[in-house]
């Protein structure tokens, strides 16, 4: 259950990226989670909701983009995708492969509702 500490790290990044008086206007926090990031998206979503409730960020929701595990074979140059983490080429059996994506765990964008700004 390290999703709780990961949710806290996401909240810390939001606090560092958004001026304090605008925190309550945050509606969406967009993150990328790779298939091989070792993080369970549903669990992360639940933890984020739990620790942001009754704070200025109570209306903020996580928007999680799943990034597939994608590998390119250096021998036959084919690209393949799997959710298990195989890095051996299924076409030619090559073991010289490059991981292109699937290990991401990052905050990409924060969306704010500007209409709330004047009233706050």
């Amino acid at each position: 259950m390290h999703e709780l500490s990961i949710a806290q790290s996401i909240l810390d990044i939001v606090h560092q990226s958004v001026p304090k008086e605008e925190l309550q206007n945050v509606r969406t926090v967009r993150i990328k989670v790779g298939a091989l990031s070792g993080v369970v998206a549903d669990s992360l979503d639940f933890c984020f909701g739990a620790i942001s409730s009754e704070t200025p960020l109570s209306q903020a929701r996580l928007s999680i983009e799943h990034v597939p595990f994608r590998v390119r074979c250096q021998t036959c140059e084919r690209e393949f995708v799997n959710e298990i983490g195989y890095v051996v080429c299924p076409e030619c059996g090559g073991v010289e492969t490059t991981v292109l994506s699937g290990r991401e765990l990052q905050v990409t964008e924060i969306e704010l509702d500007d209409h709330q700004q004047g009233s706050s």
Partner: protein
Amino acid sequence: MSIITVERKVLEKNDEIALRNRQLFSSQRIFVINLVSSPGSGKTSILERTLEYFNHRVPVAVIEGDVQTDFDAQRIARYNTPVVQIVTNGGCHLEAKLVEDALKSLDLNGVRLLIIENVGNLVCPSNYDLGETLKVVVASTTEGDDKPLKYPPMFQRAAALVINKIDLLPYVNCKLEVLKSNSLKINPSLRIFETSCTTNSGIAAWCSWLEQNLLR
């Protein structure tokens, strides 16, 4: 709606501290292993056999991570080895900050090899860089031969795999060749050792590899 572009790694703070730890280790020429596995696979026993094998010929220090108790640190202290116990109090993994704090109470003077025994867990520790030189994953034969496919991030990030409890192979439902081929599908460059802490089989090969990796 307005959008703030962030593009920041979620665990960047941990990674920053891990980098500090790594710089400290490399400045003092200390080779650091982050030893990970599921609970009960034999990490502490492998450590004990390793300390016996080196018998102070290679100066080793140990950081023990557990959810509760200092039982493991007590086991290591019997070998007259500098050891610090981190008790996470429920935390399922070690983080770089915990290691940084633990280093304050560990005398690293002259130490060539530091082994950090992580909390027994094949999921969470894979996300947290501690500043180690290499991750080593332990899988025991009693856990079956499908572990690498069930927990791929850990096997992918490890440089070496120690297959422990090989003396139990005749009694358990685990095929050594399947375990190895499953591991290599996830990580073809994985260095594999086969050990038994009961018979001491394979301990010399594992320790020789550690010794070859010591930083000059």
